[in-house]
């Protein structure tokens, strides 16, 4: 069958299995699928919710973890949750927010699995203040090429290479993570309208003490308004900070009842003009938002989850994400060069996000101290032509790329920007993992 990621580009022909228990999974790992083209052991790649944008969870044989969806234990003293890898972050919120616990780190969608969150070592709006997802992972159980499950702890090779290892060290089957205590489901949000890039960067630095921060950035603006942004900071609201009406039920907040995109929209819907208009409207709306407001966790952390299947607005051809991080030493020049390149081609990104990262100490994770920029581009020849230019600028400024978003980078670009992956490959080959845990992405990147 045709397999695709969230960006729907690229698509590959492959087998999709959905084992129901570890024995069935072990059979797939050691013997390959019962039917289909990929007979014999390997290559195989685990697939959670399919939210990686590119080709990280597709390949000749993708193995869904959707039946590994049970919660196993919860310690209400420490907040440690043990669960199977197919449990989604949204399910964790549904179960534990009413008891006063929230995810320590969450990416911009709740529809990701625990396994996927670990494999990509995802980050959230609190990276600068609290770190990446892996900071709160106590252990991981991984099924290796021999079909055996190993529990691995922070500091061990298997753990460190699995965190951010894009599923290439085996199939994550269970894990233990730590949740954080919250007094309510509400967020105190501060909104700052920054009229250009320098103002946006200054706002990030000025509000560095905020727990959560990110900015939506208008990539269609150029000249004096280039890089204009709406910077949004947030703190979990305490019970005392809620209006009296909500104090009795502090975990009940408005939930998305949003629409679902019912069909693929035709490709022309997102064009430079509609993108420009949307972004201008969004900036105006942000500029008129009261500087301080109380918002529910769902619109604050997951605004895009409001529109189910939003990837369909890009039409059948799909779209690409570009996400890089530029180190603190050279971030302003790097970001400006990227924005200028986009503005020159008129490609325009419908949704663009800018965020300050803090230091990152794990072995393979994407973040580093600096600024990350995430952009979406409709899948067109013009966008494709722009990408190598953005790659080059990022590389020249000492930056690197997020494999959970990547769908088309060259092996050479990865080698040049992120030498850690060579060590990873060398270690993988000593473990008999090479050729056994393989995605379309790992083949493309020569991992």
């Amino acid at each position, binding site marked *: 069958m045709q397999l695709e990621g969230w960006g729907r580009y690229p698509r590959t022909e492959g087998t999709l299995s*959905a084992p*129901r228990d570890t024995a069935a999974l072990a059979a797939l790992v050691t013997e390959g699928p019962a039917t289909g083209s990929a007979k014999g052991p390997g290559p195989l790649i685990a697939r959670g919710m399919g939210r990686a944008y590119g080709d990280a969870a597709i390949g000749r044989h993708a193995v869904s973890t959707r039946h590994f969806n*049970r919660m*196993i*234990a919860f310690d209400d003293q420490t907040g440690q949750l043990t669960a199977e890898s197919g449990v989604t972050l949204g399910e964790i919120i549904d179960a534990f927010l009413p008891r006063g616990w929230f995810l320590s780190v969450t990416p911009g969608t709740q529809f990701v699995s625990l396994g996927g969150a670990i494999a990509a070592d995802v980050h959230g709006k609190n990276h600068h203040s609290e770190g990446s997802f892996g900071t709160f992972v106590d252990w991981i159980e991984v099924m290796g090429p021999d079909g055996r499950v190993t529990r691995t702890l922070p500091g061990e090779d298997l753990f460190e290479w699995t965190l951010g290892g894009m599923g290439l060290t085996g199939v994550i089957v269970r894990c233990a993570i730590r949740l954080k205590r919250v007094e309510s489901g509400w967020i105190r949000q501060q909104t700052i309208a920054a009229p250009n890039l320098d103002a946006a960067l200054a706002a990030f630095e000025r509000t560095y003490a905020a727990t959560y921060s990110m900015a939506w950035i208008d990539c269609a603006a150029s000249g004096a308004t280039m890089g204009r942004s709406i910077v949004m900071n947030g703190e979990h609201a305490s019970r005392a900070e809620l209006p009296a009406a909500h104090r009795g039920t502090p975990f009940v907040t408005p939930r998305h009842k949003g629409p679902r995109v019912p069909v693929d929209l035709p490709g022309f819907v997102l064009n430079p003009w509609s993108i420009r208009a949307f972004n201008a409207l969004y900036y105006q709306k942000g500029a008129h938002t009261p500087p301080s407001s109380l918002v529910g966790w769902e619109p604050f952390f997951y605004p895009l989850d409001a529109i189910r299947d939003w990837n369909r607005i890009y039409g059948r051809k799909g779209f690409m994400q570009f996400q890089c991080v530029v180190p603190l030493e050279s971030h302003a020049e790097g970001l400006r060069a990227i924005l200028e390149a986009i503005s020159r081609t008129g490609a325009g990104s419908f949704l663009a996000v800018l965020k300050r990262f803090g230091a990152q100490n794990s072995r393979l994770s994407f973040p580093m101290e600096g600024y990350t920029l995430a952009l979406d581009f409709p899948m067109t020849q013009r966008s494709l032509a722009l990408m190598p230019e953005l790659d080059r600028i990022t590389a020249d400024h000492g930056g690197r790329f997020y494999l959970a978003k990547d769908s088309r980078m060259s092996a050479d670009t990865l080698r040049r920007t992120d030498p850690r992956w060579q060590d990873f490959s060398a270690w993988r080959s000593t473990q008999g993992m090479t050729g056994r845990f393989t995605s379309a992405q790992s083949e493309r990147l020569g991992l």
Partner: protein
Amino acid sequence: MTATVLILGARSDIARACAHRYAQEGYDVQLAARDAATLDADAQDLRLRHRVAVSTHEFDVLDTAGFAAFLDSLPVLPDTAICAVGVMGDQVASQTDPAAAARVMRTNFEGPALILEQLAARFETRGHGAVIGISSVAGDRGRASNYVYGAAKAGFTAYLSGLRNRLSRSQVQVITVKPGFVATRMTEGMDLNPRLTATPQAVAHAIWRAQRKQRDIVYVKPVWRLVMTVIRTLPEVVFKRTRL
């Protein structure tokens, strides 16, 4: 007081989804199936997510003689009982091997009908309860591809209809569920039309709604009511030549 739901055949995908749906509404859950120890992970998952009491029980639908003892052994008589027991069997095997056919008939009809009859009787004595049988659209008309299964489900459907008729003046609700295609272990690997195929969660939600709204017969996807009306009304002369 907390209400309790009993799920018979608790390992199936529809059963698991029902357990979660009712637990979400605050029901305590009794999970019953063969090899009850294999239900422990599901029981723990339900407790963690929904903070309800969950118990597991050994139950074999073919052991009709043991039904009374099984019901006596439950910690409380449930308020709602959902029978999700079922096995498709292999049609060709059922044609050639009477024992295989009998197993399909007993698993889909005899056992479910008899256990729900006993539950209904206890509910009637107590004065309230809901009996929910998961039957199948396959029971609406026998077709070459699965008529042993279909006939057993037809029997179950008729049984539920009669039970409902008998209990209509009591406070015992009887609901017949005809899910249509559902993406489950039973249908894994089949090439099903996605427009006609429901998720186990959708089935569970439809069941919960039917109970709340006092419905009698539930088709999960409305289109199935139409499809089956057409299939049922085709004249036999025509129908016998079709390949459905």
